[in-house]
């Protein structure tokens, strides 16, 4: 695991995320959001979880980012107005960040180096999904169906 790749990916991810959180124009923020999730997927690749990285790119950059852009276009009239910024949120965020960093640094050296890892193949993941994780898989299927139907019902034209 190279530290240069880690630093580059970390800077890319956090800069894009910060831009997505602070840019006034929604459409720019949505594109920066997609970029930051490419960075998170790159972290997954760096950590040896290639399948999760691919899923991250397919689901977030492929589907969720497009969905967000469509929603922005459908609610267009409102986009140009900047809705303002709540500065008390910054204080809460800084407090949470300080608490998290304190907890991470105080916990000592948990695992100094990563042991060499045998790559987790898609075949293994598929076998696990069909054996040990078959109940969660079915539940997620039901949840996705319910969410899809619910989203459709929500955006259907109301009968007057």
């Amino acid at each position: 695991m190279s530290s240069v790749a880690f630093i580059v990916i970390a800077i890319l991810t956090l800069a894009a995320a910060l831009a997505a959180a602070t840019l006034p124009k929604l459409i720019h923020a949505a594109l920066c959001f997609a970029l930051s999730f490419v960075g998170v997927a790159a972290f997954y690749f760096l950590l040896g979880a290639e399948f999760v990285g691919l899923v991250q790119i397919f689901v977030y950059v492929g589907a969720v980012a497009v969905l967000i852009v469509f929603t922005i276009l459908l609610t267009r009239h409102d986009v140009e107005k900047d809705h303002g910024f709540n500065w008390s949120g910054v204080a809460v965020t800084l407090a949470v960040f300080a608490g998290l960093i304190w907890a991470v640094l105080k916990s000592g050296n948990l695992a100094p180096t990563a042991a060499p890892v045998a790559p987790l193949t898609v075949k293994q993941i598929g076998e696990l999904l069909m054996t040990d994780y078959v109940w969660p898989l079915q539940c997620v299927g039901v949840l996705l169906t319910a969410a899809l139907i619910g989203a459709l019902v929500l955006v259907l034209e109301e009968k007057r």
Partner: protein
Amino acid sequence: MTPTLQFFLIVSAALFCIGLLAALSRRHAIFILIGIEMMLAAAGLNFIAFWRFGPRPAPPTGVMVTIFAIAIAAAEAAVGLALVIAVYRHYRTTNVDQLDHLKG
């Protein structure tokens, strides 16, 4: 020097806090959804990092939890954005400060 677990935890904490900043500070409903997605991604990064740096041979629990979390986050995004569209149809705004009809 190779990055240790704590570097990943710090990046993940930073990503979580940026998501929290977006969810708390912005007044636009879509920004709040973007912030929630970022917080979920930070949680997934933590799961993968702990799986990678855990004792060997590790059961792939972290990977499986992250896959399911991504699926649930996608469902949440779909319903959330549908809600934004439905609210926009009713009130002609997506500013969450103006959606106070249920306020006593």
